[in-house]
């Protein structure tokens, strides 16, 4: 059920010209739950805000909203040498910034130089690109990147929004923050912190002028307020509406709804100490919980169970795997075999902010009890759990979430959370689960990343199977993000909720 189209109306282009033009011209208002932290798309925005800013700034590559495939944007081709340490990159020759200046390889170099500068230290994007050692501009539309180590995933790991070199050098970073320009489909008009971001169509966009001329993002952090604003017709796209409202609107003729997956819910298990150091105990846990009933009763059937860690829309998903069967008998048996015939006491934390976790976590308890896990539950603030994750003093089981990565879908989660090496061990969240065969496959997949995508997919499917067999964590489901989407809007809500409206239009 993952990629859901926004529209309920037909897509056959039956937009009549009979005087409805005022309607077609109207401003599109999008309610978002989070405010911008600034205009610079490279400075630590969340994936949501990056999507908002993608209306103003083009990235080096993009994602097709329908197929989720990586598609060229500013970069038209990127060829590595044999050991993936040198990349020859061609860029488009028909792109201009909003001030009319041409986008060239110099702008790409400027952007990368900024990312690699010390002031960007610690920013996520810096970590993704910091193997780059040398950036050589070969021509106006060609450049060569040289990396310190072989980095097959370099171009695809992170979105790189291209900034205007000459403009920023002229007006300075403060001037850029005041009046930012990019090369994207919309121009920046006004940002008022906590209130809104107003954009207007870039008529000279290289990809064609957007049909919707006026676009406004309104910041509405409160879920109930978002729902009310949507019902009152004040926003046309509402990110994150309450579950009750979602259900009441499912048959509404005008106010449509849609979902995207924002993350997965899973139960992190401390495999370094009893009882979850024993694979049988972990398998018992996975057999113990009746997720299908929980999903139906508490989550309105809106979520998709994950057989292992990935959802069906993610790269590396293994369609042959069946989720763990709900089987309390088997769970008790496994616990007995592992040396806990009388059951075992465990501490269980639920991290706030995971969709509906306050309802779901208590509902899990009786299932655990039935299988022999005597769990004590505490619901924790996100910040508290992360502090303790860094200190490695978490409870034996923790309900938490892991977001969808925009680009390296599937691979990144394996690399950082379930492989077992020095780097992943130092990740505040990762490194408990260890299986040498799994690590081998991950290394092979990365090595073949460019040359043989099919082999990569085969390896990740095998990794999924291993992780499931080992019961590396408690597998649960993909967390939905509930949207309100008016039916008069033709726009596709992607699973990664990229809020780009370059190709959106009003139906009537």
């Amino acid at each position, binding site marked *: 059920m993952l990629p859901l189209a926004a529209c309920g109306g037909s897509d056959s282009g039956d937009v009549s010209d009979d005087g409805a033009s005022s309607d077609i011209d109207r401003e599109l208002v999008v309610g978002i739950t989070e405010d911008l932290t600034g205009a610079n798309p490279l400075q630590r925005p*969340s994936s949501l805000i990056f999507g908002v800013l993608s209306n103003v700034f083009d990235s080096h590559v993009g994602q097709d909203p329908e197929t989720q495939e990586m598609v060229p944007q500013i970069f038209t081709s990127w060829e590595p040498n044999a050991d993936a340490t040198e990349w020859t990159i061609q860029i488009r020759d028909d792109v201009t910034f909003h001030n009319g200046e041409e986008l060239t390889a110099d702008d790409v170099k400027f952007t990368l130089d900024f990312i690699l500068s010390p002031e960007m230290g610690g920013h996520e994007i810096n970590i993704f690109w910091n193997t780059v050692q040398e950036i050589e501009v070969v021509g106006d539309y060609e450049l060569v990147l040289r990396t310190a180590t072989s980095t097959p995933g370099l171009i695809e790991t992170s979105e790189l929004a291209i900034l205007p070199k000459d403009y920023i050098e002229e007006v300075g970073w403060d001037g850029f923050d005041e009046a930012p320009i990019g090369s994207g489909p919309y121009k920046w008009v006004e940002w008022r912190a906590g209130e809104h971001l107003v954009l207007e169509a870039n008529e000279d966009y290289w990809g064609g002028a957007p049909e919707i001329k006026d676009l406004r993002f309104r910041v509405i*952090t409160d879920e109930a307020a978002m729902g009310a604003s949507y019902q*009152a017709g*004040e926003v046309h796209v509402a990110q994150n509406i309450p579950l009750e409202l979602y259900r009441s609107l499912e048959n509404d003729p005008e106010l449509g709804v849609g979902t995207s997956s924002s993350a997965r819910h899973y139960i992190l298990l401390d495999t370094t100490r009893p009882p979850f150091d024993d694979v049988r105990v972990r398998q018992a846990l996975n057999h113990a919980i009746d997720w299908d009933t929980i999903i139906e009763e508490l989550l309105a059937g809106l979520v998709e169970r994950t057989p292992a860690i990935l959802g069906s829309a993610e790269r590396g998903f293994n369609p042959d795997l069946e989720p763990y069967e709900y089987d309390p008998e088997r769970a008790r048996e496994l616990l007995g075999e592992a040396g806990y015939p009388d059951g075992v006491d465990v501490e269980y934390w639920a991290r706030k902010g995971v969709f509906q976790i306050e309802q779901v976590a208590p509902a899990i308890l009786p299932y655990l009890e039935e299988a022999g896990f005597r769990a004590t539950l505490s619901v924790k603030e996100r910040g508290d759990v*992360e502090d303790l994750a860094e200190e490695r003093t978490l409870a034996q089981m923790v309900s938490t979430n892991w*977001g969808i990565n925009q680009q390296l879908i599937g691979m990144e989660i394996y690399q950082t959370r379930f492989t077992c090496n020095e780097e992943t061990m130092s990740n505040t*969240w990762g490194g408990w689960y260890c299986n040498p065969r799994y690590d081998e496959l991950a290394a092979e997949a990365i090595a073949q990343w460019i040359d043989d995508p099919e082999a990569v997919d085969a390896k990740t499917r095998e990794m999924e199977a291993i992780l499931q067999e080992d019961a590396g964590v408690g597998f649960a489901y993909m967390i939905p993000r509930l949207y309100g989407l008016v039916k008069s809007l033709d726009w596709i809500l992607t699973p990664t909720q990229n809020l780009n409206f370059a190709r959106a239009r009003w139906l009537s």
Partner: protein
Amino acid sequence: MGEILGIVGRRVVATVATLFGLIIVLFHLLFLLGSPINLMMGEDGGTQEQADAIRERLGLDQPIWQQFLTYMGNLLTGDLGESWRYERPVLDMITERLPATLTLGLLALLLGVLIALPLGLLAAVKPGSWLDNLSRVGAVTANSLPNFWLAIMLIIVFAVQLGWVPATGRGTWQHLVLPVIVLATGVVPMLMRITRAAMLEVLNKDYVRTARSKGLPERTVLRRHALRNAMIPVTTVIALRVGDLVAGTVIVEAVFAYPGVGRVLAEAMAFRDYPVVLATVTLTAASVLLVTLITDIIYTVLDPRVRIS
């Protein structure tokens, strides 16, 4: 006169000391709450290297006493620091939102006073009347309605069902209607009851009885003798409310998606953006203290009895 100056001077010193004490406690409390580093690295965590880089950039690698001294040093030169999350001066973030919050707060206070004073006075003049009883029940009811619940109910009825006013946001006067009503319901009950109590007390005083026995018309007695004196505690309560304006709107701003200082504070707490939390709370405390100080000084000048105690 010298005596008054001495008293005023002592009050000023006490006010400044209170403010500093508050900052010291607040600073350390916030750091007990936990580190912002993990929240800054985003949903998916990060590496130790990343955490250390952020820690160094924010100066959090230094001992807490040193961080505190740096903060106080900057504060004395009027520098409230920079937001960790937005990397902007905190003062800018607050001042650009202040007009929105003050508009909301002052209108609500005005509306509250316009409702509470007449009701309180009438209730005092005719204690036990239907108006007195009704206003008492009303006050208790209004006081027991949670702010956010009332706000959501009003939105559902007047914005979603009837469409008379916008549900959320800012821009036109219509946007102010619902939040002002909600905030005013927080002001009215207490102010009304205090007005009533103060007026009742004054009406039992000897000088009012004397005025009545002189044969003055009841209107004159009420207006000249009773009302003026009853207004002293009422004014104090209103003054305190003025000081409270900045922080009093946190919940209402969230429910109405209204971009004011309250939202800045709430968001800063969620992201552990401590420079912003510190500055917002300090400014709120400072405004409450300032209003109290001014009220105190005015009392000292006007009422000789305050000087003695």
